[in-house]
């Protein structure tokens, strides 16, 4: 056995042993749930848990047709706004974009932010040939760019046109949002902020400007602001007919 495969096997054995211990500990106390409120950040060395599911409620009745604050905030936070000078508009990154929809019969128009909807059953994950596209335990859908080969199947599969592909060499990326040529990217629901107990940049910008059109929170926590808001008033998933159970929901459309 080679040195490296010995190392890998050792790592695997230890991992399995530890996983076994963890499973045993969970079985010792059935019905006992450890939960932390969203106000307290998860410790840095603790993995994300499926006891939470992060979501965003977009109240489009509060969205002004000329407002672009959430998009600008995302660009600044994740560094994708003006990074691709040689790409045309259709090729450029769009982690979040402002979309205007119009009822042709009545002429009623509505502007809303459009981004990855963080589906419970994401089509992008289904079609990914390498496992780069994945759904984190807490419901955030991400691309592992280390594994992404840039085939763009996920871009084809996504009903929301949420993903984009980087066509050119990039420089001066943000340390918390690595992005590079040849990989697919999309909204990460600011996982680097959420992991610290903060809210996504778009939601923060929206409430900082006192628009309050975006509510972020744990969909599984009955007492969270987002759960209360969803319970109080009607909201919809986009393309609900696809049965994807999205984490991003809309009101007023």
């Amino acid at each position, binding site marked *: 056995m080679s040195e490296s495969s010995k190392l890998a096997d*050792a790592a695997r054995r*230890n991992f399995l042993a530890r996983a076994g211990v963890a499973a045993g500990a969970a079985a010792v106390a059935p019905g006992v749930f450890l939960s932390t409120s969203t106000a307290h950040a998860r410790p840095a*060395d603790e993995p994300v848990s499926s006891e939470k599911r992060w979501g965003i409620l977009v109240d489009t009745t509060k969205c002004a047709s000329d407002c672009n604050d959430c998009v600008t905030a995302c660009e600044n936070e994740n560094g994708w706004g003006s990074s691709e000078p040689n790409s045309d508009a259709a090729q450029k990154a769009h982690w979040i974009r402002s979309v205007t929809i119009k009822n042709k019969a009545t002429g009623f128009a509505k502007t809303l932010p459009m981004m990855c909807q963080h589906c419970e059953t994401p089509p992008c994950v289904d079609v990914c040939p390498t496992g780069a596209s*994945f759904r984190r335990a807490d419901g955030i859908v991400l691309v592992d760019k280390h594994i992404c080969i840039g085939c763009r199947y996920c871009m084809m599969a996504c009903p929301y046109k949420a993903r984009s592909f980087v066509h050119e060499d990039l420089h001066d990326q*943000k*340390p918390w949002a690595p992005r*590079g040529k040849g990989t697919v990217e999309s909204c990460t629901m600011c996982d*680097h902020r959420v992991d610290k107990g903060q809210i996504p940049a778009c939601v923060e910008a929206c409430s900082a400007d006192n628009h309050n059109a975006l509510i972020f929170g744990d969909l599984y926590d009955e007492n969270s602001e987002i759960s209360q808001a969803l319970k109080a008033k009607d909201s919809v998933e986009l393309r609900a007919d696809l049965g994807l159970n999205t984490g991003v929901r809309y009101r007023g459309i």
Partner: protein
Amino acid sequence: MLALLLLLLPLAATADSDKDGEKEALPFSDLTFPEPARHYSAEQKCVQPVEEMRKNHMNYILHQRDETVHRGIRTRRYALEECVNCHTAQDDKGEYVPINAPDQFCYSCHSYASVKIDCFQCHATKPVRPSTLNTPEADATDSTEKLSNDIRQLLASEGQAQ
């Protein structure tokens, strides 16, 4: 006395031939190990002993990468960002030089060893926010460290058994 002379004779002959330049230099003996620009010090130690990091830094980074991307574990000790924070150098004007520039820490050794990495096609090459190493958050023993300790212990015990 005569015996001593006889013993020294071959040495003298060798020295002569060296002077004449007859002895050919070994291939690649003119290559020197590159000394990268650096701004860390003996007081600011690396996260593992230098010998360990020289040999195994890629394993620490690889493990941390998967832990962070897939499981949301954000300990700082083996984060690539902290490598960059500590190992980038500043130029005359005090501006940070990208860590993947030819004479800088990562590239100088990787080019010597003919290793082509593409970390920095995506990752930031200069410090952007202050280091959080040596804070309670970073000092917490993380799973990467546990794993590497486990591997070391296991290898040691296997070595003893053989």
